[in-house]
């Protein structure tokens, strides 16, 4: 069966202890096709990819490749069959050169010596196919994320892969790098290589994919031709309901005369002379390219990193934070963009995660009170409608959206006067995204100051009342008030083009 398809998965079921991650799903990819796989977090995309990649076998179901049944037992076997896998978290050896990474395990050699000349020539040739402008002798650690990705892709292609799996390849790329990646994908397609593209981002799916398959809760929903549909069709299939307006309404009652936060001439490592203010009732957005210094501004503002100069007022009172604890005690909190490595205590319980910023509130003297800890966690689990099996479970068992809500609950417990959220919905599915956006709007209406930093233009435009654009550590301009917020306006400022 399935002669027409390069790759086919039929009736795949995967049972994990306690959960059914996949239930009788299918996936069909033609030769030279760019095929998107969509679904909320926990829909089973990664599970299927791991089965195809040979990380673990399915409980039931069959895989076909070029018409023949396959059952890869490990990543090496699937590589051998012709399946390349570029993981979201890249897996290169950082201290080796790009060339050595591409030909790892099969370095060309003369006798028992590595033939470096041939190695570098071959590697340069492969890399140049993808328009790489770095030498294959560069150490991987010195490459940017997008360049490292190229190395991974080059590695798979040089192994003669016929199906290349890209797992959320754009999640840490800038817009420019993303465009470059798309060129690479198009070239691969021309060579007849099929691409399986896993992504949350609608514009990308429509930019390069021919077909899209949607999973929901471990079930197959549908496969559609991208040329016949619009993004709402995909979203509807992913969440199983109409979403209505994606973003909450803008603020109706900004109190111009009430400043929650005022920052003057704030300078620090990688940014200079930042001046702005936040009014009561509004959500202030910070846009800019990755690395423009937005997170650094926020961290210095909170006293996490030192500032070199500048003054900060909170509710009209000048503040001098010696460290982050001072800022937290005054009601300022910062939610990191890097949830997994900077935000969560992964193996610790949901409860312990939620009380981590506010141990005093759940203690009497130096003694923790379990009752108070439970109370605090339960309060915010209920208030934020966090879906959990119990507050004693490790937080790693939750989906990205629920993890983010736990972190939000953790900080709401200090009764903040200003919440700064860096990439508030990175790696979070559509449903949870709008819940978090609505929540931020509600907080702003209750008089809490809200600042968001986001690299997703639709998000920063959809959620904020006013947007400040940062370019190379400097305030490049403001949109949303006098100037209308459009993607073009923001990008012009963010890329440093003068008006």
């Amino acid at each position, binding site marked *: 069966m399935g002669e027409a398809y390069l790759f086919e998965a039929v009736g795949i079921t995967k049972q994990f202890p306690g959960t059914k991650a996949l239930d009788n799903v299918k996936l069909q990819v033609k030769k030279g096709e760019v095929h998107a796989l969509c679904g909320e977090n926990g829909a089973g995309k990664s599970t299927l990819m791991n089965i195809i990649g040979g990380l673990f076998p399915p409980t039931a179901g069959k895989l076909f490749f070029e018409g023949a049944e396959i059952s890869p037992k490990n990543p090496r076997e699937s590589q051998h069959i012709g399946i390349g896998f570029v993981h979201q978290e890249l897996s290169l050896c950082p201290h080796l050169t790009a060339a050595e990474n591409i030909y790892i395990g099969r370095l060309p050699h003369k006798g028992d010596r590595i033939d470096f000349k041939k190695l570098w020539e071959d590697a340069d040739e492969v890399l140049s196919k993808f328009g790489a402008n770095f030498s294959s002798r560069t150490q991987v650690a010195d490459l940017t994320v997008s360049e490292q990705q190229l190395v991974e892709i080059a590695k798979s292609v040089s192994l003669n892969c016929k199906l290349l799996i890209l797992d959320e390849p754009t999640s840490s790329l800038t817009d420019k790098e993303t465009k470059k990646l798309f060129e690479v994908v198009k070239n691969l397609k021309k060579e007849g290589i099929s691409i399986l593209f896993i992504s949350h981002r609608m514009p990308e799916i429509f930019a390069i994919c021919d077909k899209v398959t949607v999973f929901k809760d471990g079930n197959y929903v549908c496969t559609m031709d991208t040329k016949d549909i619009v993004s709402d069709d995909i979203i509807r299939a992913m969440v199983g309901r109409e979403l209505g307006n994606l973003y909450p309404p803008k603020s109706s009652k900004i109190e111009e005369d009430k400043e929650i936060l005022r920052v003057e001439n704030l300078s620090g490592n990688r940014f200079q002379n930042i001046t702005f203010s936040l009014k009561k009732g509004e959500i202030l957005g910070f846009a800019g390219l990755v690395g423009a210094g937005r997170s650094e501004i926020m961290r210095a503002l909170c006293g996490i990193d030192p500032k070199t100069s500048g003054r900060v007022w909170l509710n009209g009172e000048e503040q001098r934070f010696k460290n982050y604890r001072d800022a937290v005690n005054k009601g300022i909190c910062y939610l990191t963009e890097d949830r997994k490595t900077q935000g969560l*205590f992964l*193996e610790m319980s949901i409860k312990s995660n939620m009380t981590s910023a506010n141990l*005093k509130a759940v203690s009497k003297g130096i003694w923790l009170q379990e009752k108070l800890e439970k109370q605090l966690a339960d309060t915010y689990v209920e208030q934020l409608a966090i879906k959990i099996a119990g507050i004693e479970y490790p937080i790693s068992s939750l989906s990205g959206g629920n993890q983010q809500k736990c972190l939000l609950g953790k900080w709401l417990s200090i009764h903040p006067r200003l919440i700064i959220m860096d990439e508030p919905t990175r790696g979070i599915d559509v449903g949870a995204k709008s819940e978090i956006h609505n929540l931020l709007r509600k907080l702003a209406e209750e008089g809490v100051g809200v600042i968001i930093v986001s690299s997703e233009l639709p998000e920063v435009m959809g959620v904020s009342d006013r947007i400040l654009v940062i370019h190379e550590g400097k305030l490049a301009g403001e949109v949303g008030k006098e100037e209308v917020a459009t993607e073009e306006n923001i990008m012009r400022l963010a890329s440093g083009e003068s008006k």
Partner: protein
Amino acid sequence: MKKDNLIKRFFAQREANVLIITILAILVVQLIQPKFLNYNNIKSIMISVSTDGLMAIGLCVALILGGIELSVGGVAAMSCVISGYLCLQGWNIWAACGAAILAGIFVGLFNGLMISKVGLPPFIVTLGMQQLSRGVAYILTEGSPLSLSGYLPDEFRFMATGTVAGIPMLFLIFVVVAIIAHILLKHSNVCRSIFYVGSNEGAAKLSAINVDKVKISVYVTIALLSTVAGILSLGRFNVATPELSVGAETTAISAAVIGGTSFTGGVGSIFGTFLGIVLLKVVNSAMVMLNISVYWQDFVQGAILVLAVTMDYLANKKAGQPSMLQRLFGKKN
């Protein structure tokens, strides 16, 4: 129903496994060698558990913090020698102990500052301090043990060699310290921070936890525990020797790991560590009672460590929960 749950929960814990294995080991040895469970032997096990146990508590906390502390044995030797040396120089023994404690605090502070403020890896810093502090002991003694016969007052020696109701003082001190440490670690908010830092230092920093302060306090506390162990050893042996507690750090690490403390930080308990050190010492004593050459001790200790970790791995793998090894080498989601 609720009681049922409690029993279930107890057996699901790592401590229960170690406890069961320890009891089984005792029973088996007792069957082969009926003289095993007599008062003198139990007493000698209690004594041998105590000083290594104090250092094992320290290692347990260091591992929970996500660090390691290799200087415990060196610090014990240093404080033993400093207090003994000063006593021989005519100091009052308590003043001499005070000086040893100050030296211990200094090592702890140095470790803590280098690890937190300078940012050096704990392995390197404490490895250096292990040799440095033992070096102090060698310099003061010029290599040969100093005998303190007749110099140490009775009340000092009582701390290390006396018994209360038949239980050695040394063991009582250890148990009291262990209980306090256990309760603090489980139920106090200051010690909870140690788990946060060990679990994810970056996240701890962004939770407004003073990471540097936590680290410094932990390393000072560990050095203090080792100092106490050294001073008690002086009282116990009546000799100030630079060769005291050689290799104590490996025993202490084994005890902590057998008791379920994770090498990647954020997980561990003093009770488990207590059981770990008891198990190791029971096995050592059993080998003596069974007339097995002492040269087998290291071999068996290593085997127990590997066995404990493997059992934990297999048991947790079956249950579908992350085991210690998975925590050690990163999770696969």
